[in-house]
């Protein structure tokens, strides 16, 4: 496979993300990386669970959390996961335009999620004076949810830079793996969120 083939968007195999050795490497490597990421988030979840009662006399999760916001955020992120599936669907059909559209929707949903999250943090900080320094629970909450938020930011930046860079030249065997693993990353963010809304929010108000 020469660079000529790689950058030629005419012919697309049905798994363009794995058609080149580089693509295969990226694909496998990224999955491995996600294995490591699960340990990363497990460490954060474990810490959170160990400290979620350590409110040190400050605000507790029952007093803080409201479920409406979390529900909306969950819906946004879940939907964005589906839209990125659509994007990959069109990528495999070699339909670059549609892929870009769906990616655009994904990004928009992700941005929406992020705005709500920022609003939530802001709310806690200013309404309840609940910060990272309030208690061990505060530290653990902001760190876990913030790490997830950081992943969302990174995912969005990744999508956007990929879209901008490739807007003109369309899909090829060089960038298909990049799109594909970015979408894997996005799904993984969703996986983490499923546990966050369950463990942090739902169990937190119980």
């Amino acid at each position, binding site marked *: 496979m*020469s*660079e000529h083939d*790689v*950058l030629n968007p005419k012919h697309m195999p049905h798994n363009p993300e794995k058609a080149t*050795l580089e693509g*295969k*490497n990226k694909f*496998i*490597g990224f999955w*491995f*990386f996600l*294995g*490591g*990421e699960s*340990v*990363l988030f497990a*460490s*954060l979840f*474990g*810490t959170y669970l*160990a*400290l979620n*009662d*350590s*409110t*040190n006399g400050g605000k507790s999760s029952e007093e803080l959390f409201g479920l409406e916001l979390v529900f909306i955020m969950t819906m946004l992120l879940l939907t964005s996961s589906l839209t990125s599936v659509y994007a990959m669907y069109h990528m495999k059909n070699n339909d670059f335009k549609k892929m870009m559209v769906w990616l655009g929707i994904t990004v928009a949903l992700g941005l929406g999620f992020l705005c709500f999250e920022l609003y939530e943090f802001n709310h806690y900080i200013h309404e309840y004076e609940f910060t*990272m*320094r309030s*208690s*061990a*629970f*505060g*530290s*653990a909450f902001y*760190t876990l949810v913030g790490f997830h938020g950081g992943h969302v930011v990174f995912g969005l930046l990744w999508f956007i*830079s*990929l879209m901008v*860079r490739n807007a003109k030249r369309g899909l090829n065997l*060089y960038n298909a793996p*990049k799109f594909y693993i970015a979408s894997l990353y996005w799904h993984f963010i969703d996986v983490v969120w499923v546990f966050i809304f369950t463990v942090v929010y739902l169990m937190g108000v119980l």
Partner: protein
Amino acid sequence: MSTLVATNKKSFGATLWDYLTTVDHKKIAIMYLIAGGFFFLVGGLEALAIRWQLVQPMNDFVSAGFYNELITMHGTTMIFLAAMPLIFAFMNAVVPLQIGARDVAFPFLNSLGFWLFLFGGIMLNVGWFTGGAADAGWTAYAPLSTTSPGEGVDYYVLGLQISGAGTLMGGINFLVTIVNMRAPGMTYMRMPLFTWTAFVASALILFAFPALTVGLFLMMFDRLFGAGFFEANMGGNAVIWQHLFWIFGHPEVYILALPAFGVFSEIISTFSKKRLFGYTAMVFATVLIGFLGFMVWAHHMFTVGMGPAANSIFAVATMAIAVPTGIKIFNWLFTLWGGSIEINTPMLWALGFIPTFTLGGMTGVMVAAASADYQFHDTYFVVAHFHYVIVGGVVFALLAGLHYWWPKMFGTILDDKLGKITFWFFFIGFHLTFFIQHFLGLMGMPRRYWTYLENQGLDLGNLVSTIGAFLMGVGTIFLLINIVKTTMKNERVGGDPWDARTLEWAIPSPPPFYNFKQLPLVRGLDPLWVEKTEGRKGMTPAEPIGDIHMPNNSFLPFVISVGLFIAGFGFIYQKHDLSWLTLIFIGMGIALGAMLTRSVKDDIGYHIHKEDLQKEAEE
């Protein structure tokens, strides 16, 4: 694009630039070797200072505070900046060659990993010059670490964070390389044992380092941003740090030990002229050790107060590791059995390793017995245990590997006589230093003791121990002399100076930058040996001569690392003065900018053309 022309005479600047931008695994290996070797000397000097302080009771060669910095930096330097990078040096130099690959899977990441390690290592040591290095032990237990004044521990946190990121990349890179880049016929069960151990160690890196990453983040938030994870007054809990550290820390010792086992498997098999006895069992044992390695971390915490149930479970799980390790020891012994054993320097290290490591492993099982560990824990008995396994296992392996693969890496061979002198000084010095420490521990000498009282029966043991340490120093100096001498003489050797068995010996020393002109066809375990027994000189190619795809050099990894290095200072000093935040922005700007550049600039490499290869062959 004919970069093939021999690059004999290059200006210093050009060579430097070449190394700063290289993505060639062989050059990266050399850089790991130099940097890791340098840090080994630094850590060794720290060890000598430690031993000198302890040469007599109530000594005041160094102050208490400085002593604490010395042990912390000794442990941290040796583990993260010497042993791991040196292992990476050999993994880089050897693994792609052993599996018949032209490069690693992610050459760019490979180079990034190196530069992150180097700048992280520098960051750790900057503390020395800015009012004191980290002083809370290499384990940095909170709350001692979170309340330690000054910036030493901040440098520890950020330095390890940066170099840890590099290590993680290295781990993923080797995993993918081994999965995807094997030559035709190189099935998993034909991979040399060093490659196997590199594979399992990389998997351990992948699963263990994230726990450290999180631990370091929490510590950073506590120290620099007022969080309270480990602060009892805020409801925090310092035991969390201990768990996170050891969930990483225990697999870490196998990350070091497994590749060491791999090195010895190669050497023992080569120099007894036999295939490895029980290859399948060896592979299985490697995987099992890796797996069990994740279930035993709390054996470092028997005295923390987790209760008898947890202590018993972890004690038994820990002891279980003796079984696969024993399988390895016996398989090595039976590889030697019936062999034609040639004792040269690499083999001497291997033969020194077997009894030494067995002793260290046995004391490991002793400390694994929870109720006995109530006595052993945090005494010199434990210091003795882990130096027996780490020095007697890992450092011996690194020195063995150094002599074994030096010809492959540099095309010239280390002097055998000097090598043996090095060995004997180091080996005898080692046992003098550490054997007696078992008794010191049981006689009531805790570890991390700046000094000990007079008249406690500890004087003689410590004196002997110090003498031993200096003998190791002498041994190390002979090694340095050997390296200088060999490099000056520069007698060239051929591709296969040891009459060895694995693929890396099938190509010239040092290998051309594309490694294999034609990918080899692997027809069994010990592929080169297979060909030799059938009377062939080298490997049968699996493909006709064709264009070779090569990755482009890049300066970006260096830039990214510098960026993070700069940002590190911003994070640390913003606790005094918020204007330092600008450094964070500058540093992160540089790093992210470089990453962005990387992602928008296509990097699809270049090709070495068939014609050039053929021309070269004719020359």
